[in-house]
């Protein structure tokens, strides 16, 4: 009897509270229909108010980059809001520079749609689409890195710049109940536009990397969207220096293949750093390219070669190797992809070679 009354009273109280919230939501969170105007009338649509601008836009199939999923921790989802955003929120402050604030940049994940909006979205965001892909092949590149080739649905193609990245969605598995997404750089060349290749290193306890490594096999479906990012070749120079560590090779590979394919007249130096020989991959592939093209130099380096590696190539931290190879970088641009620690160290080294930070482009993962 007592169990029954407990269950009953808890149920009744929960229902009453839920009803109160629904009623309150109806009164307070009901902002009616709001009109969103993108790029001065290019696209205008009406939406139901009360949700964040980020999710409202993705409901309209306009995807703004966001690596954190709307928690105001990545700062990627900023766009210019000309009208409608209201005052700047404390949660946005850390991610907006003085200049961005003056130009009305805001984080779309924090701004709520309560009235009509006028916003400016860069054209390339409209290339961003969602794709349900099929895994065509998986290759084991090293003991902890796998390469994935994801085939787009028939008749569909993707337009991206070499160096950009895609967002990759997991399905719930094991104890992970929610779908999550993470960003991975595209490793194939843009002309190969019917598939996306990704290089994923398994991070211990990483939700998404563990999913990719243990749950996926050829023929499985994977949801991705993109492309995103401003890591791509600028080419305002005669020579570029590219530095990657581990799975950071992906965007660099895409850039190299793109430059060679389009016959761009630029000299490329590619430094690829890992710890031991078992972490290296695609060695023959790049050495082959280097043998066939005069404008491409490939320098793999190991920081701590194991005795059994029989390594006669470069040894040392990638920054030391770069320091040995490059004398004067005043007509060079730098392209970096790897861990934040590696990138910061490389920026410092490149600065000593007269490559200022404005001419160094990077993706930190």
């Amino acid at each position, binding site marked *: 009897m007592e169990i029954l*009354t407990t269950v009953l*009273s808890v149920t009744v*109280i929960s229902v009453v509270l839920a009803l109160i919230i629904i009623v*309150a939501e109806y009164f307070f*969170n009901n902002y009616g229909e709001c009109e969103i105007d993108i790029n001065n009338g290019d696209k205008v649509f009406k939406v139901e108010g009360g949700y964040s601008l980020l999710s409202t836009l993705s409901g309209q199939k306009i995807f703004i980059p966001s690596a954190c999923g709307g928690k105001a921790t990545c700062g990627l989802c900023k766009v210019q809001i000309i009208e409608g955003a209201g005052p700047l*929120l404390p949660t946005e402050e850390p991610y907006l520079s003085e200049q961005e604030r003056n130009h009305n940049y805001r984080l779309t994940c924090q701004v709520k749609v309560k009235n009509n909006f006028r916003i400016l979205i860069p054209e390339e965001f409209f290339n961003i689409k969602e794709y349900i892909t099929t895994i065509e092949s998986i290759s084991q590149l090293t003991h902890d890195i796998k390469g994935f080739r994801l085939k787009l649905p028939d008749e569909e193609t993707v337009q991206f710049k070499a160096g950009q990245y895609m967002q990759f969605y997991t399905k719930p598995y094991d104890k992970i109940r929610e779908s999550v997404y993470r960003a991975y750089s595209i490793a194939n060349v843009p002309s190969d536009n019917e598939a996306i290749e990704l290089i994923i290193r398994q991070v211990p306890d990483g939700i998404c990397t563990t999913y990719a490594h243990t749950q996926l096999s050829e023929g499985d479906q994977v949801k991705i969207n993109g492309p995103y990012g401003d890591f791509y070749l600028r080419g305002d120079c005669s020579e570029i220096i590219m530095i990657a560590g581990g799975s950071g090779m992906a965007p660099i590979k895409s850039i190299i293949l793109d430059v060679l394919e389009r016959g761009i007249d630029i000299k490329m130096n590619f430094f690829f750093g890992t710890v031991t020989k078992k972490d290296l991959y695609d060695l023959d592939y790049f050495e082959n390219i280097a043998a066939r093209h005069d404008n491409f130099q490939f320098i793999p380096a190991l920081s701590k070669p194991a005795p059994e590696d029989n390594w006669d190539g470069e040894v040392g931290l990638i920054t030391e190797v770069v320091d040995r190879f490059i004398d004067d970088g005043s007509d060079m641009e730098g392209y970096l992809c790897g861990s934040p620690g590696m990138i910061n160290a490389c920026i410092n080294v490149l600065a000593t070679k007269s490559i200022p930070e404005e001419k160094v482009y990077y993706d930190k993962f």
Partner: protein
Amino acid sequence: MTIDINPLVIFFASILTSNMILSNFLGMCSYVSISGEYKTASSLGKSVTLVMVFTTALNYWVYKLVIVPLGLAYLQYVLFIMIIAASVQIIEMAMDRLLPDLHVKLGIFLPLITVNCAILGTSLFMVIRDYNFVQSLLFGLGSGLGWWLAISALAAIREKMGKTKVPRGLEGPGIAFIITGIMALAFIGFSGIFTIT
């Protein structure tokens, strides 16, 4: 039972000698994580105060009118939590709609304090100590102000310490706990003035 304590004594005691953080060590998670910057910490403190007063008052009547008559005292933890969560959500929605300026300053912190244990603690202490309505209200207000005082003080100290060299193992939360400990010792000094248990 402490039923006839002057409500004002409860009010001041809950700010100083029975401070939610410094003597009961409740609500520590947001206290440690959001105390890096004085401005933010102070806004969070104000929101906690607001929610504490509101939920203590609400829970008092829920306890008297629903929990006691139905004999559900053993469920009070669950029910209080549910009521706190629901009311915080409603306050946030209402504030966003009716007081947008205030929402920008305080409202965005509200989701963070839904699960703040100091808020639940205040409601539970109110029941255990058998306070009447006025006592509960002032207890809620005092506890909130005390929490605000503590987090503002910690944030101000941490801001001052911004440039000092802290041993590596103690950076961040480590040193925050040590500062809190010293602050707690200092606050014990008030216990000669008035104490509630």
